[in-house]
């Protein structure tokens, strides 16, 4: 497989330059920007193609003159150097002509930019919050919110030395556990902000990216005109797992969207109710293992060993592995410390109870502690 790929690449390298100058768009090779699925993304694509053609034509003219000169005005062909070294006319001409071309570019660019800033009159508003390293979506009109993290199969395959072939994973690194669902042909206002460091929310098919900045809210909009699943990624370096916080948008007809909202609310109500009952240790361990992989393993690593100097080890840690550490352990989860985020606002009582129970009984930690959702509720 590897050598086939290498051969394809070498063949591809030979053809790609001609492809670009011909302006050819080869979807399989992913050569060009997507025209996207919103009115704005189409405008942006048109602007991109216009400026690409303009610079290509200028390039061809200038480089042709240069190469003509290189071939004909060479000493080996007996060329004798001319003496001229100044022309006011030429200097003025090649100042004014580029100015006119630039003005021609600035007009459509300005129009598109003004259009992109019209964020009013939205049908739906979703607030997007960047976390290290996941996205939170709040449907502001619906009292619905959830986190979206890298899909588990991608997460396993992307570990250093996992020996899992990325090609065997469904949408490797571009798949999430819970996509954001939006209705087609509705104006959606998308607010971006962040909880810790700066992130950037980018789905190329929507035609823009926008930084998610702690303490600030940026507003953007999109009208998705075509049903489908659109994928993107965080585009602003946000630390260790910057490359592993994808975005998946599913655009569906309005009735499907309404049904999805109802399902999500139902599921959230069930999850909230589960915090009221007593859980068995096995239940907590199973749920905790799953939640640990999603929320904790990015820093504390799969085996709880941490990263020396950055993220502490949980295996054998005094807080996690001894009975006296329990109150501190709960406090860390709920309120965070230094780089540790406050998971109290991200996870339910049952979730936190499960993670703590799992951590206290895994990787050689054998406290035997079983922490119940009501213990967490009491500690909040």
């Amino acid at each position, binding site marked *: 497989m590897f050598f086939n790929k290498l051969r394809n690449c070498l063949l591809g390298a030979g053809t790609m330059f001609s492809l670009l100058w011909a302006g050819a768009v080869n979807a399989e090779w992913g050569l060009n*920007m997507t025209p996207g699925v919103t009115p704005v993304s189409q405008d942006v694509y048109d602007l991109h193609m216009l400026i690409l053609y303009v610079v290509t034509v200028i390039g061809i003219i200038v480089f042709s003159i240069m190469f003509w000169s290189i071939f004909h005005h060479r000493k080996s062909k007996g060329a004798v150097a001319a003496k001229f070294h100044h022309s006011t006319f030429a200097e003025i001409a090649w100042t004014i002509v580029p100015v006119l071309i630039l003005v021609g570019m600035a007009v459509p660019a300005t129009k598109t930019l003004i259009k992109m800033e019209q964020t009013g009159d939205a049908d739906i508003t979703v607030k997007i919050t960047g976390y290290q390293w996941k996205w939170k979506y709040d449907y502001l009109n619906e009292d619905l919110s959830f986190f979206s993290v890298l899909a588990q199969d991608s997460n396993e395959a992307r570990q250093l030395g996992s020996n899992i072939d990325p090609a065997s994973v469904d949408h490797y690194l571009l798949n999430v556990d819970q996509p954001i669902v939006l209705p087609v042909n509705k104006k959606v206002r998308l607010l971006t902000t962040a909880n810790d460091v700066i992130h950037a929310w980018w789905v190329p098919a929507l035609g823009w990216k926008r930084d998610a900045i702690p303490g*600030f809210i940026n507003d953007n909009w999109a009208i998705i005109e075509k049903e489908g699943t659109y994928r993107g990624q965080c585009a602003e370096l946000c630390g260790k797992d910057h490359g592993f916080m994808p975005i998946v948008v599913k655009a569906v007809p309005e009735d499907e969207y309404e049904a999805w909202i109802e399902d999500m609310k139902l599921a959230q109500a069930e999850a909230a109710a589960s915090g009221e009952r007593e859980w068995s240790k096995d239940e907590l361990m199973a749920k905790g293992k799953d939640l640990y992989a999603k929320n904790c393993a990015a820093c504390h690593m799969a085996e709880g060993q941490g990263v020396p100097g950055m993220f502490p080890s949980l295996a054998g840690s005094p807080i996690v592995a001894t009975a006296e550490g329990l109150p501190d352990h709960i406090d860390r989860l709920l309120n965070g410390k230094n780089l540790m985020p406050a998971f109290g606002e991200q996870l339910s009582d049952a979730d936190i109870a499960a993670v703590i129970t799992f951590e206290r009984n895994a990787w050689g930690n054998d406290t035997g502690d079983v922490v119940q959702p009501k213990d967490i509720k009491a500690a909040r």
Partner: protein
Amino acid sequence: MSEAVIHEEHHDDHDHKPTGIGRWLFSTNHKDIGTMYLVFALVMFFIGGAMALVIRAELFQPGLQYVDPVFFNSMTTVHALVMIFGVVMPAGVGLANWLIPMMIGSPDMALPRLNNMSFWILPFAFALLLSTMFMEGGAPNGGWTMYPPLTLQLGNAFPFLIFAVHFLGISSIMGAINIIATVFNMRAPGMTFMRLPLFVWTWIITAFLLIASLPVLAGAVTMMLTDKFFGTSFFSAAGGGDPVMFQHVFWFFGHPEVYILILPAFGIVSQIIPTFARKPLFGYESMVYATASIAFLSFFVWAHHMFTVGMPLAGELFFMYATMSIAVPTGVKIFNWVATMWRGSMTFETPMLFSLAFVILFSIGGFSGLMLGITPADFQYHDTYFVVAHFHYVLVTGAVFALFAGTYYWLPKWTGHMYDETLGKWHFWLSTISVNVLFFPQHFLGLAGMPRRIPDYSVQFADFNMISSIGGFAFGFSQLLFLYVVIKCVRGGSKVSDQVWEGAHGLEWTLPSPPPFHSFTTPPQVTDATAHS
């Protein structure tokens, strides 16, 4: 190496030259300091290049094979800092040191002791920076742009990063002061400003950019230092500060910095093309004015690096128009170089080959720069591999290629020996082909949606990444040939004349090859006929 041929009238110089390690440690001589700058830059070039190869090795295939994401982020961050502050800037100052006194007809730089100090700060600054590679928590990994709050999460390396940046800034500012003092005060009789070689002009303008922009960077990182250790909240929203303000302040430095890196390259190419076209530089005055315009405009375009932070519409429009306007003086320079070649009598020695490649490949970087300046399109391009391709075209095939060209052009003057032309041409062709295989596919990757600064990517980006990595390794190893050619030339080779190149004009070519320890002990008289030719 300067023991070789020294002309009769410079006999006395032998007595004043210190020997041994002291010659270098305590040097106040512009040539020795220039040599140290250039050697330092070459060493850092290989260190920064090795980091780039770690990056390209990890990106050869999807999946993480060799390094963890934190180390990967350290590699991208430190690679950039090393290449910008350790390679291109010192190499530019090294050339300025060697050439400006010889070009303006002076014996040495105006402030020789300052010159010594500005060089010797560099190794210490980089010792600070590179020592972080061995610290718990790793080297800086928040990107060379050091955006808070991310960079504030850095561990023990943080104060080392800040102080390394301070030292690098101090070193560059002192170098810039020296260059301005030298050009303003030490020109030979008749060497008016409008007779200065273009390399000298680009360096004066660069020196002013350095003095104006580096204190701003120092201020920004100092504010970050107090945020981290002394409880201030300049950049923390929770404390009433503004993380975006750092970006504004940083790029107010950062955009002029881009021209600090490229203007000396413009100067080098403007010396070389007339020599090998055997024809005077076309539009000398317009070249000077274009350079000055670019430098002036560079202070009004910073926010085009941060279009996606969410600025008001008026701000986005202003920075878009200002950015587009820079294409005009830059175009003028390209047109002037092409007009210089037109109806010349060209030969294609290695310096000329690198200069021609510079004109074409820098233009391609300029074209993608113009595309990036179109704000709505930038909302797609920003922080993707399209940007990575763009700035490597202007910095590698732009600045670094010009430095190669300059090295081949003046190496015979400095050493008195001709370099190996066959190997030089091999170096050129290997570099030019591989660098395009390396960076051209990155345009496609960016347009297809691959963000920059990621250690792993989805499988649709696999093919172009593999091509890019192959080009990267070929380019990297080709530079060993450059090292060999330089060492071979320093150690020996066929003797060259004073003028070296048939078409070379200017004061540096009137001195012996190699030149005497003190360049012009009696100032030459410059006339219109000897300048500008």
